[in-house]
């Protein structure tokens, strides 16, 4: 499959937009947070009780006439299934959708051993006939057009086939029925195994599950051990979230609870495949909450660009990288884990509230420790960011080289052709002439730095590397705003907060960098951040890494600049803002960490509406990553470019002349992209816009 095929991109984009609307409609009037918290709690308890629940499930299922077999790994499961088929003289088996059979590569195994498997789910059948890799967990043939499908069917049937969807569906109906009627066995997965009565829950839309479980005389259920839940009510908890989150339907067309065979025989193969080890891992066991709804894929900006063919080993996307690490081996997860932007968008929709992006960071740490890491990362993270002196010296060298690398208006000259992939789609900024720390010293000596009105106390601005070295104007603007509001402003340490190494799986370097920040940020006063990523480090990741009281105290004192103003100074600002009524159309880009981790972008939006006295011209997908994502844009410049291109197209559609955002990384990416395209669009930090309006 070609990476970022334009047709695939467009299909996945349309699907993602349609899914978002349908999903929202489904959950309307329901408390999604409560539903998924209940589900997560139930799954967590079931994981802890897994052995006991499996025993109970097995006993009940056997009482109803099923035979339950357990497999330690994929090879054993495949062998058990083959033994059952041989025992019953099966040559043809029809299959319902089953991710686990893909996990064990069952089809290839059966073919090698003289059994002909046929998929009955339409999408699965299409890709089986076309020998195509699946692109989506729920809709595996989403990458194929009706023309492609007609070609595949024509090849199979040996005759012309019209490329009309109803005709193609009719062919599938006829062919699958023929196969189901002629098959000696059917195999399905299970969406839940119910311990209290030994039944399985099976969810389908097409009705193929009902055919496969009813018509052939032998039914094999192939399921993994974490699917077991205590009660029917618990299975309904899974169902309530599953269909809404998977396809945006209140419920699927067919849900079957099968406690045993009516006639014929039923075997249930329970596969472990390292899940017991995973259940014993206190950090990663939450992965087993996954109910395979694939909502995380449907909102993933990278998945939307590259599809599941590229973004998978067998399981897809971010959650797929985690499952792969345990099930298929750490080494197979490295490439897919590296495709996670860390935007945390998936976590907002995950059915079981799995902290996917956070766990991927932990996985990267294990990967670095056990399989090694790239040299450039070791130099950047261990050698530079963890050492403030070297870090400062590197930026100082960049400033010294400014006459050589700058081409005016704050932008750097183009990179040499061999590095062109990094700046073909954006103009990179040149280092500022003077860093914020020096400019701030000058500013504190000026009358503007004297707090106005009754002094309200001391605040510390934590600027972050990009503002310190590239966008000091943002730090100065924030200082002026706070001073006007009556605060005595100090500047926090200008060293790296430690987020880049932490996010790339270098916890030791991150700890070292963050410890320095904790030590240098003093003991009193609010710490106001101008970069959501630094905020995340100071409030969440850093204290988790250090685990000290000092770090926790710093977390408690830290808040994003806009959140601080919204909570404390909204009234004062509304009096101070000059009612100029001259703002043109403007739009807002929700930075990933600001929206998905801090919930801060709503405050920025409110403040900006007040400051500009004009409603936002909303852009399409304002909360999709701009493509910066730190080290990601270095590792995957082509994906970064595509994300930036999409963002700029969305900006253009609004007709806005101003893009507001809260993250200096997004300033770099969107501002650089607009500049490269020669657009007359200003890209500004919220602090700058507020400062200009006072």
């Amino acid at each position: 499959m070609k990476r970022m095929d334009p047709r695939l991109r467009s299909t996945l984009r349309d699907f993602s937009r349609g899914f978002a609307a349908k999903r929202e409609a489904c959950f309307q009037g329901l408390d999604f947070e409560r539903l998924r918290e209940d589900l997560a709690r139930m799954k967590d308890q079931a994981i802890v009780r897994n052995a006991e629940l499996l025993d109970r499930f097995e006993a009940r299922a056997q009482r109803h006439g099923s035979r339950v077999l357990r497999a330690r790994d994929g090879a054993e499961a495949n062998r058990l299934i083959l033994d059952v088929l041989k025992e019953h003289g099966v040559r043809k088996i029809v299959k319902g959708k089953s991710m686990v059979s893909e996990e064990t590569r069952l089809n290839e195994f059966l073919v090698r051993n003289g059994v002909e498997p046929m998929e009955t789910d339409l999408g699965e059948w299409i890709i089986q006939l076309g020998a195509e890799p699946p692109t989506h967990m729920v809709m595996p043939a989403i990458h194929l057009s009706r023309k492609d499908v007609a070609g595949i069917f024509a090849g199979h049937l040996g005759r012309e086939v019209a490329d009309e969807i109803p005709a193609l569906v009719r062919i599938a109906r006829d062919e699958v029925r023929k196969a189901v009627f002629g098959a000696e066995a059917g195999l399905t997965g299970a969406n839940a195994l119910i311990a209290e009565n030994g039944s399985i829950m099976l969810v389908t839309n097409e009705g193929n599950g009902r055919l496969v479980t009813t018509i052939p005389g032998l039914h094999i259920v192939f399921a993994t051990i974490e699917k077991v839940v205590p009660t029917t009510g618990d299975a309904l908890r899974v169902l309530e979230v599953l269909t809404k989150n998977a396809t945006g339907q209140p419920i699927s067309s067919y849900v079957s609870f099968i406690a045993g065979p009516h006639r014929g025989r039923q075997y249930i193969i329970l596969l472990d495949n390292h899940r017991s080890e995973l259940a014993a891992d206190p950090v990663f066991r939450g992965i087993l909450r996954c109910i395979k709804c694939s909502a995380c894929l449907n909102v993933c900006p990278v998945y939307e660009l590259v599809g599941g063919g590229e973004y998978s080993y067998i399981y897809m996307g971010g959650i797929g990288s985690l499952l792969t690490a345990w099930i298929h081996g750490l080494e197979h997860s490295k490439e897919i884990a590296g495709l996670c932007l860390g935007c945390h968008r998936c976590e907002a929709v995950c059915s079981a509230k799995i902290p996917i992006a956070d766990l991927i960071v932990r996985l990267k740490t294990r990967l670095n420790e056990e399989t090694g890491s790239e040299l450039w990362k070791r130099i950047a993270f261990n050698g530079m960011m963890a050492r403030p002196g070297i870090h400062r010296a590197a930026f100082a060298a960049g400033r010294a080289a400014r006459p050589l690398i700058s081409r005016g208006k704050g932008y750097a000259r183009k990179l040499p052709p061999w590095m062109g992939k990094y700046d073909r789609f954006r103009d990179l900024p040149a280092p500022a002439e003077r860093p914020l720390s020096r400019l701030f010293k000058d500013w504190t000596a000026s009358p503007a730095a004297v707090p106005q009105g009754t002094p309200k106390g001391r605040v510390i601005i934590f600027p972050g590397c990009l503002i310190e070295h590239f966008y000091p104007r943002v730090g100065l603007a924030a200082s002026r705003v706070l001073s006007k509001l009556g605060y005595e402003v100090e500047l926090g340490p200008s060293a790296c907060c430690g987020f880049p190494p932490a996010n790339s799986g270098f916890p030791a370097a991150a700890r070292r960098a963050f410890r320095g920040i904790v030590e240098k940020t003093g003991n009193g006063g609010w710490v106001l951040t101008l970069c959501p990523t630094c905020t995340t480090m100071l409030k969440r990741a850093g204290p988790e890494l250090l685990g000290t009281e000092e770090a926790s105290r710093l977390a408690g004192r830290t808040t994003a600049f806009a959140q601080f103003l919204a909570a404390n100074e909204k009234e004062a600002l509304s009096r101070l803002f000059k009612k100029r009524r001259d703002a043109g159309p403007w739009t807002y880009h929700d930075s990933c960490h600001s929206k998905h981790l801090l919930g801060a972008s709503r405050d920025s939006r409110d403040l900006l509406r007040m400051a500009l006295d004009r409603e936002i011209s909303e852009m399409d997908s304002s909360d999709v990553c701009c493509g910066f994502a730190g080290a990601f844009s270095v590792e995957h410049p082509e994906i970064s470019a595509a994300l930036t291109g999409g963002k700029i197209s969305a900006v253009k559609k609004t007709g806005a002349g101003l893009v507001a955002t809260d993250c200096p990384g997004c300033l770099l990416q969107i501002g650089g992209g607009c500049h490269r395209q020669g657009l007359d669009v200003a890209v500004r930090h919220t602090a700058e816009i507020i400062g200009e309006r006072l």
Partner: protein
Amino acid sequence: MVSRDLFEKFVANALSAGAEVREVPAGENVAVHLAGILGKEGILRLSVSEDARPLLRDPAGDFVFLPVQEPADFETSQAGIVRADYGVAETGTLVHLDLGDVEKMIWTLPPVCAALLDAGKIAGRLADLIPEISAHLEASCLPGPQVSLVTGPSRTADIECQLSIGVHGPSRLLILLYGGPAA
């Protein structure tokens, strides 16, 4: 007696899932009403489940009740006539406590599925039916008890995300509600 609100919610959600819903007016015979609908469309060859038969004692018209036991017996069946045990208002779902594979085939194989539902058996939410579903699945006297939830006709969006109805199951789900509340 089901409340008018619950009844209407069931009807609205079943319609929105793609089912057709007809209300049998009070005092009217279910069989006659069904015959009126199917007969007009030339749907005469029917496979009828055991639990629906008591309601179809006097069908008007030229209907043929096909004897069905094996999948091949359904080849000429134009509609399956079944009886749902419960309805669920929040999703427009029919709940059937299956007694055998033949019943499941009657629900699934013919191109039209006509389901009879006593409106008095409509629950608000699926969770309200947990005791009934659990009791059926636990019934040790049955060989492999099963429960089916059916919501609208069979569907797929596997080609270009375009919705198509009737891929492997019925393309029409007709729900006949009887014993409903007075308007």
